[in-house]
């Protein structure tokens, strides 16, 4: 039985002093339940993701202790992809009729910091300043620009677009538009990437309610179909974040490519059918690379596509219509559910000032993060 999304809820992303991640998530859940016309006791199972909250499943203490199975999930920046996939799978297999996916986080300021041992890496890798994700993205886009003729100006155009889109989104964090000149004048953090080309860790929460497609008419929300969920880890020979070395004799594509191909195949939908996409824009370079890795263009085509405005809300293939990670920041557990929230609004025609014209029918969500993991979700009307 196919799973459909009948409710979405989003706590704004940003900084909320004195408010806990779990309180934000409880608010997002109440919004999603209200959107679906569902009460908490009707929810039969849930999947909850967070980096900072050790027991995110404790959220039931704020919603009602109904005794349902609530499972914690974590896959780094792809955490929400796992929450959605498992919530949908529980319906597809017939185990449950109505499920929920929840994500929450509240990160301290600045780059993520941890002991390398949490990722199975040696201590010296952190001591000498290499246990970071940010410099990987600088190195990957630097090589990509060299190989495929992408300019610094195009990096700035992507960041400017996402800040512009965020300015039309009252739940986004960075709502002040920035010009390409301002972006190109900001300090270089990891050459060629500058401060205003990066997303930042922040705070927020999101939730989505799913049910069996044949029962959707019983609820208030307009259903959006879950056509495919895929998650893939890195293969030997892929150039991946947090890798002290990479083999030279064999090459494999990013797990994004593997997850994307699998998702298109499951959905029976091709890249040419995608009407609106949310792509992991940890930085402006990542959005450019992910356009190609998700099959939405060929390597190098981005330079012309972006110059022509094709990825703008008014363009042929709108990308990160709510501002993406650059405009919203990244509360890791919730980030991918924000993408789903935006796609559902777009497919319902309810995205307001940032609505994509022409009644988009297919939405595409993509996540990527450490230690080389990618999740893709395809939705349709």
């Amino acid at each position: 039985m196919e799973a459909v999304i009948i409710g979405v809820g989003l706590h704004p992303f940003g900084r909320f002093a004195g408010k806990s991640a779990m309180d934000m998530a409880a608010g997002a859940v109440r919004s999603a339940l209200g959107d679906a016309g569902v009460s908490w006791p009707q929810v039969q199972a849930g999947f909850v993701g967070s980096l900072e909250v050790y027991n995110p499943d404790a959220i039931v203490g704020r919603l009602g202790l109904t005794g349902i199975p609530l499972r914690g999930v974590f896959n780094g920046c792809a955490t929400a992809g796992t929450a959605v996939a498992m919530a949908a799978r529980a319906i597809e297999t017939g185990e449950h009729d109505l499920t929920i996916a929840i994500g929450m986080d509240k990160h301290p300021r600045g780059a993520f910091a941890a002991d390398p041992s949490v990722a199975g890496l040696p201590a010296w890798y952190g001591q000498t300043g290499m246990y970071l994700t940010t410099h990987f993205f600088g190195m990957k886009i630097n090589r990509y620009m060299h190989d495929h003729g992408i300019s610094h100006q195009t990096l700035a155009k992507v960041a400017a677009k996402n800040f512009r889109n965020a300015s039309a989104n009252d739940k986004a964090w960075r709502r002040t538009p920035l010009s390409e000149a301002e972006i190109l004048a900001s300090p270089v953090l990891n050459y060629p990437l500058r401060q205003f080309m990066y997303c930042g860790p922040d705070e927020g929460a999101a939730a989505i309610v799913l049910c069996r497609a044949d029962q959707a008419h019983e609820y208030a929300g307009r259903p959006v179909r879950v056509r495919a969920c895929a998650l893939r880890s890195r293969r030997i020979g892929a150039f991946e974040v947090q890798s002290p070395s990479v083999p030279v004799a064999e090459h494999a594509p990013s797990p994004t490519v593997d997850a994307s191909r699998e998702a298109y195949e499951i959905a029976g939908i091709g890249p040419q059918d995608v009407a609106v996409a949310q792509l992991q824009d940890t930085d402006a370079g990542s959005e450019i690379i992910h356009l190609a890795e998700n099959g939405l263009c060929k390597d190098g085509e981005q330079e012309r596509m972006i110059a022509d405005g094709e990825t703008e809300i008014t363009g042929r293939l709108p990308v990160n219509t709510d501002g993406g990670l650059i405009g919203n920041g990244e509360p890791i557990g919730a980030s991918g559910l924000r993408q789903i929230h935006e796609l559902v609004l777009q497919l319902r025609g309810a995205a307001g000032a940032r609505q994509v014209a022409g009644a988009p029918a297919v939405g595409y969500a993509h996540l990527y993060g450490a230690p080389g993991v990618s999740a893709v979700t395809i939705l349709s009307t």
Partner: protein
Amino acid sequence: MSGTRQVPVAEGLFTWPSDEPRLIGAQCAGCGLVRFPAGSACERCGGTQAAERLLSGRGTLWTFTTQGFRPPSPPYDGAGTAATFEPYALGYVELPGEVMVEARLTEPDPARLAIGQPMRLAIVPYSVSADGTQLMTFAFAPVDGADQAGPATEA
């Protein structure tokens, strides 16, 4: 350097002191994959039997970036503070026929680095402890006379 105590950041990472230092990698006994650091298992086949292999001290720069802000401490244990932090460069250096290694680069200016340029291994101090002891790590330096590779592309 006489009088300055120097210690490597980790044992078993590189041969040093030496006029020709080498990174200490491993070659899987099962599938032959060369890896760095030596570690405990092969990323390709999962095999746990391997022979130590001293890697080539020369290679070419596959990609690079800069570290423009002080990495969070811990785990970073470089000297100084965010205010005194001096940016450094990082890259992946391809050791032909062996493996591509992530490393610090001795040249911090991206305008003086170019993809494809020849590089050689160096053991350099990256931090200094309270008693003056220098902490040493591996890095790659542009091979002298390799500047004709030209500056990095800038739009």
